[in-house]
């Protein structure tokens, strides 16, 4: 690999499989209307095998495209009695998609330029007006605002309701048994979701302490995959038998 190529590669952060395909097509100077599928598939797979060069968050999408390319290739290898009309050509859909995506990329470029221009221009958003402006706070109301407004309101309400402690008495032992049973049935538990399902704040607190106890006793394992994300709880394998008597 020459120096220029590796330099180029480092610069590229592909936004998606189409972005990568367009890059390869350009690099190989291929006519988008007449894509040599075998060649492009090989190039594409080659790239995927060097995974550090694509955005790993969307690996599935890149793999899906690989599958599509292989599918098209296999379709084209099938023996046919007569030539296909252009619309039935398996490459047609790929070409259409690429063309469509190319347009979008051009639009992105135009909008980015316009955004740059507008960044330097300042308008006034707040003005001193002779009328009370309490009714002026919403510029655009969409259906989304309406629905969001409702569900946010409900969330707020739920937050208040949980403070009401109802009379139901739950012991630590009962709760612990319940948790273990749920884990046996469902294999894992979403920590926040489970706490959210508790009827009262008191019960949620008890459940919380029970989980802490179970973790301490090494009966369950709790994993947080990412900071601020929910915590998942699994039953440890060796604990299956023991926990039955919990």
């Amino acid at each position: 690999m020459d120096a220029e190529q590796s330099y180029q590669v480092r610069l590229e952060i592909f936004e998606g499989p189409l972005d990568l395909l367009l890059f390869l097509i350009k690099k190989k100077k291929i006519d988008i209307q007449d894509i040599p599928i075998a060649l492009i598939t090989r190039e594409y797979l080659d790239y995927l095998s060097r995974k550090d060069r694509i955005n790993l968050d969307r690996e599935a999408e890149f793999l899906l495209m690989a599958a599509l390319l292989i599918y098209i290739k296999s379709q084209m290898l099938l023996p046919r009695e007569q030539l296909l009309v252009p619309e039935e050509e398996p490459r047609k859909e790929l070409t259409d998609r690429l063309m469509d995506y190319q347009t979008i990329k051009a639009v992105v470029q135009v909008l980015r330029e316009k955004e740059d221009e507008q960044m330097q221009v300042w308008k006034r958003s707040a003005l001193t007006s002779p009328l009370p402006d309490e009714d002026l706070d919403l510029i655009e109301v969409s259906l989304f605002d309406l629905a969001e407004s409702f569900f946010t309101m409900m969330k707020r309400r739920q937050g208040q309701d949980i403070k009401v402690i109802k009379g139901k008495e739950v012991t630590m032992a009962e709760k612990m048994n319940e948790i273990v049973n749920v884990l046996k049935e469902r294999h894992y538990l979403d920590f926040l979701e489970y706490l959210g399902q508790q009827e009262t704040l008191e019960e949620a607190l008890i459940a919380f302490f029970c989980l802490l106890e179970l973790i301490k006793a090494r009966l369950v394992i709790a994993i947080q995959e990412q900071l601020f994300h929910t915590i998942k709880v699994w039953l440890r394998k060796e604990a299956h038998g023991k926990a039955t008597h919990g």
Partner: protein
Amino acid sequence: MAEKLKEIIESMIFISVEPLTPEKMKEVLQDVPEQDVAQAVQDLVGAYAASEGAIRIIQTAGGYVFSTKPEFDPYVRRLLQIERKSKLSHQALETLSAIAYHQPVTLPEISAIRVCDSTYALHSLLEKKLIKIVGRKEAPGRPLLYRTTDKFLVYFGLNSLEDLPKEEELKKLMEEENA
């Protein structure tokens, strides 16, 4: 910079929500001598005062701010009144959403959902014909029942109430935000 000093100050006064004080100007125009700034401000205020235009710069609360000349007050008021009428406030929107998802519903129920007295918002929605009275509830005091109107559907571009986003759809979108 010096030859554009007047315009630089103009752009700053234009963008300030509060009257722009000489101290603030100084913060931005650090290297410019104080008397130059003062002179430019005076020129600027004078130029606007002498112009035929509708706006001028006034000195208030120790700073400078753009304002319309008093003679245009009637038009400004008329415009603001119109703008005000054509928009939904946050209060109104929240009330409307409570009605949309719970209809038919009574005022006490709406106020309970919002944990907030909704009489005023309800009236403004009735006035805008986004909701209507459809009867009375068979309950103590027989309170009036409200529903959204066809105008409500048109306003939000809905075909029917079935088209309102479902809780799951919204939840998914809102969760993305917290992710």
